[in-house]
């Protein structure tokens, strides 16, 4: 028996019409293009000590790409601890790190739920690997620290109505931001590290105009036609060590030089982000 009291919508799903005016089509067609030189990262704003109740905190904002409708990355990180572990937990000779990365429900084009989804858990694991190499863990036996990164605004182009497969690449940009902001927050909390770790991304992109693919650092997926491969690196500059390496893409194995170059550029991007980080921490101290 169907419901006759209310006026119901059609049974099947319908798709609302989307009108595409000429201007937006043109923008989507040309897709902007990169305005920076290939080895320049976007400007970033970093500030520590933004959350008074946490023992350490930091806020990171990365510049938008200059086009309207494209949002930059906005991250906030809080560090709680080091604090003693509960009595019930087993003895640990090292500090126990727990990292949480969460997109705000409104951060991306598609709404995210309040529960962490697998990709966010995955980012948390990457972040933990990156930070664990930097922290001098044996100075705090029997203690734990919580590192919580919330992504307030994802790095996404809202103008383009079409999905372009950017999201999997966006994760890399988000991770590099997470590493940098978490490192600043750890320093703010006064947790000893061997060095400040910062994240950097490099990508192998191919654009319509160019014949051969080129390597750029800090890529914005919507500015390029295709991203062939990308890598995100967490790097300790004074020790010249990599704590986390995440590479994704499709490269012929015969050409390892391409891969080596990509990693080199990733390290370069990370070193640039590290300069901002060190300057910000210097301001706080001075």
């Amino acid at each position, binding site marked *: 028996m169907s419901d006759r009291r209310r006026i119901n919508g059609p049974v099947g799903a319908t*798709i*609302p*019409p*989307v009108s595409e005016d000429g201007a937006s089509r043109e923008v989507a067609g040309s897709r902007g293009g990169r305005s920076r030189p290939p080895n320049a990262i976007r400007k970033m704003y970093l500030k520590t000590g933004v959350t008074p109740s946490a023992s350490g905190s930091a806020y990171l904002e990365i510049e938008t790409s200059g086009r309207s409708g494209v949002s930059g990355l906005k991250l906030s990180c809080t560090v709680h601890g080091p604090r003693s572990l509960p009595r019930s937990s087993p003895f*640990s*000779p*090292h500090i126990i790190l727990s990292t949480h990365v969460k997109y705000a429900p409104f951060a991306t*084009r*598609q709404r995210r739920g309040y529960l*962490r989804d*697998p*990709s966010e*858990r*995955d980012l*948390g*694991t*990457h972040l*933990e*690997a990156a930070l*664990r*190499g930097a922290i*001098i*863990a*044996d*100075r705090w036996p029997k203690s734990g620290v919580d590192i919580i990164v919330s992504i307030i605004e994802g790095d996404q182009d809202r103008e383009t*109505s079409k*999905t*372009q*497969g*950017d*999201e*999997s690449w966006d994760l890399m940009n988000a991770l590099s931001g997470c590493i940098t902001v978490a490192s600043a927050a750890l320093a703010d909390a006064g947790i000893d590290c*061997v060095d400040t770790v910062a994240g950097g991304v490099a990508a192998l992109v191919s654009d319509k105009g160019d014949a051969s693919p080129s390597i750029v650092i800090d890529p914005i997926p919507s500015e390029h036609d*295709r991203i*062939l491969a990308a*890598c995100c690196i*967490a*790097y*300790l500059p004074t*020790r*010249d*060590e*990599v*704590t*986390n*390496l*995440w*590479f*994704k*893409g*499709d490269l*012929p*194995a*015969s050409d*390892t030089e391409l*891969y*080596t170059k990509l*990693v*080199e550029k990733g*390290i370069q991007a990370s070193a640039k982000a590290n300069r901002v980080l060190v300057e910000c921490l210097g301001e706080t101290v001075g």
Partner: protein
Amino acid sequence: MASTQHVLLSPAELAYLHAALSLTPPIRPDGRAPAQFRPLVAETGILPGTNGSARICFADGTEAIVGVKAEVERTRLVDGATAGTEWKEGGSARGEGEDDDGGDKAGDSDWVELTVEIPGYRDDDAGTAFLAAMLSEALLADGAFAKRLWINRRFHWKLYLDVLLISPPLSYPLPLLSLTTHLALLATRLPRLKSEGDEDPFFDDDWAAARHLFPRSSSSTTKESARPPVTLLVMAVGNNIIFDPAKEELAVADVALAVSVAEDTTAAATTAATMDLDDAAAPAARSLRLLSIRTIDPPSRLTPPGVPNAANSAYGATTAQKQPEARTAEAEAVEGVWRAPRGGAKPLVMAALVQKVLEKGGVADEILDALDAVDLG
């Protein structure tokens, strides 16, 4: 989980293991060569209710089962597409390279769902999510896999891969799960399509006529002689590179990487053209593609440090009691006393690890050859 699970080894044992593995050539606890895998037993087609299944049992007793199930799903149309535009799921990542053949044959990474189940761990555990992300990332990296699931412009196959570890995780299960997934996908068959064009799909009900998702050694479809990727676990101790580490070996690793590689389809096409229907000779000219690399957080960072005799009060050291700050001060590294590694790995070491995986006639080649020999039923 898993990579950081608790290792019940004393600092003295860890120091011994580390020293043994740093020798040239390294001496592994189970007597293997540095690039030797654990012996394994593999079979396919063990689950009659699935489209494809496989079981692999490693010699150390870890065992995994993978079942692949396929469902027909309607491809959702978004963005008010007009004639000739794409059909796709909203807001999902696309496989790239969709313009390669015919233009309209596009895949979507939403068409594959991979879950990993490890006994003793919650399924929303971060480590389990990491494993699942790693396996599906390698599978979808080249964008060609999702394209295989395309039926017509209105329908596609949705593939569910369920990866089950049925033994307790005695070692980091990544290589095991990856090899089992690889075999299960090789054995996967989908019913033959009888309908044509964009009409509702209608399939041949004869299972014997079903085609493989990854067709093998057919000279007519050389383009499709691809195989799913494999993910290898490789670690470095001192100057040595060690493949497929057991749990104890991973506990003293300086750095551990998971590297996913696949066979290069374009190169395979040229070899298949010269020697048709000869699958034994094809691997000779195999070339690989690098799909993904992830750093695995080595459990060595969580191991307890040893106390050198100079600082041990049982051996007459008195400094520890008198000056409490001396205890916390960084002691010099003493030969033979275990200390958890600190910091990361040199970029050159990481590059060497990747190079070792990718080299011609290396471990990746050996693994792919060995998996070739498994009867797909």
